[in-house]
């Protein structure tokens, strides 16, 4: 008693949770009696001081809230209940009283009568309008609790409860309370008998539709508009009885609101109609159709159109799926009328309205079997009739277009209802096939015809082999009369698709046709037309011949042509060899392109072409190189050919198993290093001219022979680690290094050697101590550092050095640092520091020599690791040094940034963090360097950063893009790079213009406005650039400044 008394006094004096806690635990431990507290409160409860009365009740409510339920037995609850109820009447105690009741509402010991008492009390005394949000929330919570655990009692109360609740819920505005109210509403709508209360309940829910709530920026409860929309929908679709009034409401809103509220309305429609059921929807069918139709025929935006189409489907499904009618019986009602309405519009297929009409019909296909069947059986005959109508000939393209998209839709939905759609098309199969193949004949309708055929062919199990054959032979026609427009391409795609389903037709009819169009001899220099033609045929073949059978034919036919063209013994009749070379090059490129596709697809048939293609090519080129008549007069003398051939060799060699590679490389090695060509003889046939000597590495080797080094190189690159070259690697590499420095005559030859060096260093480093040692100790001093050596030789030596680094760097080899250091030492040496800087900068760049497919040892993040080790240093150098040494650092920096993945330097780039400004000013200096390659790369770096910014919409982010600070200098620098007068390289001008275009997308208007006038003026000059591509960029750049 006293204890309770004391607690109360102290709490009333200064309300702290402490006393509440003590009281609560006291009660649970039984050393404080609830009655005592109630009695103890007596004086306060009777006080005239409103505040005291309030406090009194508040205290008790708080205590109850804290006491574990099991410690409040039935009659304790009875006491408390009557106590709090009595306080409900007093305006000054109503709030704490509600809190108390909230506590009680959770108690299982609360009797059913108690529940009823509480509710009636609340209904009687609580005036929601006079309460603030938090207090109203308590009321909703009480009802929510009771609804959760005392539902039965509430159901017994029936209409009394509903009436009372509706009165409370009416006019609620607060989102938090509404979330609770909607939850309550849904339960009532689903579980209670609401026959007489439908209107009331509809009013307190539908009045919120559609939700147009925008949460305040600092909303403590984080309730989104979406939460509310979903909650409201769950009420609106809770009871079919809402049907008629709700549909009327939806229609009214649809007509008035704009997106995105419109989308909400449509989505709600979709969720509700199925619940409201067929009859309600059928009664409103017309109005619904008219409303939705409008959104499709005059769409405000694509999303609304899409949503409306979905809703149309819902309407149809709701009306028709319920009645389990059999498809055959004739359709009545909306679907029939709507279908007819759309088909009428299709009578003018070329008009703009035909498109939406077709979209609707396509939507109908995936509704119910009956509707789908009806649609198909009316649309297809109609379009066929239209196509065949002589008066409609001009519009054939349009009607085929519609037919094509309809069949495509049919195909797609065939996955949904296989039974219905596939079969529903069968009766029209022949006619459809007929009109499409007819359509192929005329240019205007060929495109649609092809896409239609595409749909037919891809429709599972529709066409049989003969019909596919029929399609192929018709499409072949399109190929043979090659066309400017995209139809040719589409036709090829179709044939490619078919070649997957059944290659036989393509290989037996299409390929022969195409090959027949390929001349054996190269079109003469003047004959651009036939050259065009043969290119397009080759292009066709390259798209078509991916499948193994087709590829095999391709290789055979093209190899034959190659040999004819390049055969040393039967050179081109006229002495103009270049056309033949170019033609051969085109053929080789075709083979290479297809091989690349196949390798990326992981086709298993690639490997066998080491014998069927590669060895042939090797013989072709080496045979030419040693031919008795002057090789430089042969087509193969043109290095462009051997480069493509090398690509082919590499592609095929790379997929060989180790032992196959081994034997292959043995032969090449003996040929290239030991000069023994016999090893390469494919057949017994004596293919090499007598006394022919092959020594490409010799100082005196002919260019043609040296060119073939890249075949050797590309083959070596492809080797698995375990495959060994029949020589001491160190010796081999030293030979190559020497060759690359003073033996090789051309870059191609040098690079061939360098690639091998990089690759061997990469794969066999453990056996190369000797080599690396001699490089560091003697080679560097004698060939690179020694200023008395001819500068070109020093440059080549730096090249060999750089490629050695590459081989080490990509495997994170410990020695890398040492090699890099030696290059950086050269930054002081004016004669070669630019080359050294380039080398250091681009050493980590992606290259085709060291790749996964070449089985190289690549450590992940090696580039990042490298750039971390040097980036800051280059930045420092570029900032601190001056003159040529500064430039060297700048050059190294720009090439580094260009060559490593963005993540490797992102932390120093605009778009990322406070350190953003470290790099940008330096890049701007880079733009002042004369070297256009550097400038292009700088601008492209900035571009990629800018694109990242647009992706993250930095412009509208709080801090904005980090380039904003530099907007002015960036703009002015770019303007310097857009004028033909000052910049001769179109690449630079284009890059600069692109940057000027993107800048307004990432920088706020106010930052750019100051220069608007100058920019527009300078850009207007660029509008008159001699290069079309530059003018295009200038136009876009200017436009970006107008908006």
């Amino acid at each position, binding site marked *: 008693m006293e204890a309770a008394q004391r607690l109360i006094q102290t709490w009333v004096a200064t309300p702290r949770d402490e006393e509440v806690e003590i009281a609560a635990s006291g009660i649970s431990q039984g050393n404080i009696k609830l009655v005592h507290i109630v009695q103890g409160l007596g004086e306060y409860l009777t006080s005239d001081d409103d505040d005291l009365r309030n406090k009194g009740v508040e205290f008790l409510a708080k205590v109850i809230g804290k006491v574990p339920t099991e410690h409040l037995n039935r009659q304790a609850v009875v006491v408390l209940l009557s106590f709090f109820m009595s306080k409900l009447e007093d305006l000054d105690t109503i709030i704490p009283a509600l809190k108390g009741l909230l506590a009680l509402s959770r108690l299982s010991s609360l009797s059913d009568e108690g529940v009823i008492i509480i509710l009636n009390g609340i209904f009687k005394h609580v005036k929601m309008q006079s309460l603030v949000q938090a207090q109203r929330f308590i009321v909703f919570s009480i009802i929510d609790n009771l609804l959760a655990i005392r539902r039965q009692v509430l159901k017994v109360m029936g209409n009394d409860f509903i009436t009372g609740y509706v009165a409370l819920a009416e006019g609620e505005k607060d989102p938090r309370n509404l979330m609770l109210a909607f939850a309550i509403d849904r339960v009532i709508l689903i579980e209670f008998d609401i026959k007489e209360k439908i209107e009331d309940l509809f009013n307190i829910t539908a009045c919120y539709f559609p939700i147009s709530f925008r949460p305040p920026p600092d909303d403590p409860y984080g309730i989104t508009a979406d939460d509310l929309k979903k909650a409201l929908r769950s009420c609106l679709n809770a009871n079919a009885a809402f049907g008629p009034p709700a549909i009327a409401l939806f229609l009214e809103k649809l007509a008035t609101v704009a997106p995105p509220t419109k989308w909400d309305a449509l989505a709600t429609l979709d969720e509700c109609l199925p619940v409201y059921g067929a009859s309600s929807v059928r009664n409103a069918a017309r109005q619904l159709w008219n409303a939705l139709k409008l959104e499709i025929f005059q769409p405000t935006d694509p999303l609304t159109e899409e949503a409306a189409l979905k809703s149309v489907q819902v309407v149809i499904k709701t009306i028709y799926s319920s009645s389990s009618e059999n498809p055959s019986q004739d359709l009545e009602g909306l679907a029939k009328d709507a279908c007819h309405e759309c088909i009428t519009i299709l009578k003018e297929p070329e008009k703009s309205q035909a498109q939406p009409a077709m979209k609707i019909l396509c939507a109908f296909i995936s509704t119910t079997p009956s509707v789908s069947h009806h649609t198909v059986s009316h649309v297809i005959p109609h379009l066929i009739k239209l196509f065949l109508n002589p008066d409609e000939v001009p519009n054939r393209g349009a009607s085929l277009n519609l037919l094509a998209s309809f069949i495509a839709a049919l195909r797609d939905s065939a996955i949904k209802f296989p039974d219905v759609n596939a079969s529903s098309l069968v009766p029209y199969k022949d006619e459809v096939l007929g009109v499409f193949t007819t359509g192929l004949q005329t240019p205007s309708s060929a495109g649609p015809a092809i896409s239609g055929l595409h749909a037919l062919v891809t429709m599972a199990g529709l066409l049989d082999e003969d019909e596919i054959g029929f399609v192929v032979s018709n499409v072949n026609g399109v190929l043979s009369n090659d066309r400017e427009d995209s139809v040719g391409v589409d036709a090829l795609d179709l044939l490619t698709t078919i070649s997957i389903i059944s290659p036989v037709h393509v290989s037996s009819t299409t390929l022969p046709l195409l090959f027949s169009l390929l001349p054996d001899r190269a079109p003469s220099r003047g004959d651009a037309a036939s050259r065009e033609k043969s290119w397009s045929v080759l292009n066709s073949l390259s798209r078509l011949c991916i499948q193994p059978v087709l590829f095999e034919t391709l290789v055979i036919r093209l190899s034959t042509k190659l040999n004819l063209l390049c055969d040393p013994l039967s050179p081109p009749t006229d002495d103009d060899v270049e056309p033949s070379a170019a033609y051969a090059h085109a053929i080789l490129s075709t083979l290479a392109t297809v091989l690349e596709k196949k390798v990326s697809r992981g086709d298993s048939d690639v490997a066998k072409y080491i014998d069927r293609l590669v060895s042939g090519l090797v013989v072709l080129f080496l045979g030419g190189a040693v031919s008795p008549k002057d090789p430089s007069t042969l087509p193969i003398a043109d290095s462009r050919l051997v480069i493509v051939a090398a690509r082919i060799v590499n592609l095929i060699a790379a997929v060989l198993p180790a032992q196959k590679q081994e034997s292959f490389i043995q032969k090449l090695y003996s040929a290239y290093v030991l000069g023994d060509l016999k090893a390469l003889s494919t057949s017994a046939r004596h293919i090499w001219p007598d006394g022919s000597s092959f020594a490409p590495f010799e100082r005196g080797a002919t260019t043609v022979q040296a060119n073939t080094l890249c075949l050797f190189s590309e083959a070596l690159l492809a080797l698995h680690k375990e495959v060994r070259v029949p020589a001491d690697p160190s010796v081999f590499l030293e030979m190559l290094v020497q060759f690359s420095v003073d033996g090789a005559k051309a870059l191609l030859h040098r690079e061939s050697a360098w690639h091998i060096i990089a690759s061997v260093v990469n794969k066999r480093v453990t056996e190369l101590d000797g080599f690396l040692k001699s490089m560091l100790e003697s080679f560097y001093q004698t060939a690179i550092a020694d200023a008395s050596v001819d500068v070109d030789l020093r440059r080549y030596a730096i090249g060999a050095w750089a490629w050695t680094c590459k081989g080490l760097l990509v495997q994170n080899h410990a020695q890398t640092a040492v090699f890099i250091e030696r290059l950086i030492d050269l930054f002081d040496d004016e004669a070669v520091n630019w080359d050294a800087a380039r080398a250091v900068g681009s050493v980590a760049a992606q290259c085709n020599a060291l790749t996964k497919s070449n089985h190289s040892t690549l450590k992940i993040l090696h580039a990042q690791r490298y750039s971390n080790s040097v980036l800051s240093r280059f930045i420092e150098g570029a900032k601190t040094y001056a003159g040529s040494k500064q430039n060297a650092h700048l050059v190294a920096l720009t090439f580094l940034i260009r060559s490593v993945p963005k993540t490797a330097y992102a932390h120093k780039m605009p778009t990322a963090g406070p350190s953003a400004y470290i790099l940008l000013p330096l890049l701007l200096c880079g733009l002042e360097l004369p070297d256009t390659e550097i400038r292009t790369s700088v601008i492209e770096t900035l571009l990629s950063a800018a694109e990242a910014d647009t992706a993250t919409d930095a412009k509208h982010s709080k801090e904005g893009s980090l380039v904003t600070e530099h907007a002015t200098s960036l703009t002015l620098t770019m303007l310097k790079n857009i004028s033909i007068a000052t910049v001769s390289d179109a690449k630079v001008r284009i890059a600069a213009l692109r940057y000027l275009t993107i800048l307004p997308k990432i920088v706020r208007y106010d930052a750019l406005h100051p220069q608007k006038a100058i920019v527009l003026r300078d850009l207007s000059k660029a509008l008159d650039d001699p*290069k079309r591509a530059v003018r295009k960029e200038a136009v876009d750049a200017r*436009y970006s400044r107008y908006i």
Partner: protein
Amino acid sequence: MSDQTFNANPTVFALTKSAKRRAAKELLWLSQSDESDYDSGDEFEPIDGDEVFDLIRSISDPEHRSLTLEQLAVVSAPQITVTDQRNHIMVEFTPTVPHCGMSTLIGLSIRVRLMRSLPARFKVDIRVKPGSHNSEHGVNKQLNDKERVAAALENPALVEALEVCLATASRRGQPVEAGPY
């Protein structure tokens, strides 16, 4: 703009492929890079009808915002004459219906696009295809009165309408991303 409709259901035409140009010197070698369209030597590429067409083909039709002038065959490459040496360009366009009240706005959008996109040295004349419009003379006279054009461009409402039509112009014949169906 008035809400009156002039042609609710116009004919839609397929997009034509952008003119593909051969470099002046005939190519012997098949080039791999697609970028070979620039940097191909320093030879001067004069502005021609196709280039001007690319500039205006994708302007949206003021009445059917989802359709371009090209799709409605309002503009076409053959209707454009460029005399680069004499700095003169003549653009002819064809209203979808002879009573089309949008013709002036269409012509204006073409003029503004060209004003912004062509070198200042060009004098541009714009006119409707002879016989394709009821008030042909009036429309032509208005479109080529630079004072009226200037005044129009100081009318915010009009400019707003124009910008909507011009927003799509930089697509240069590329179709919009395919719709839901």
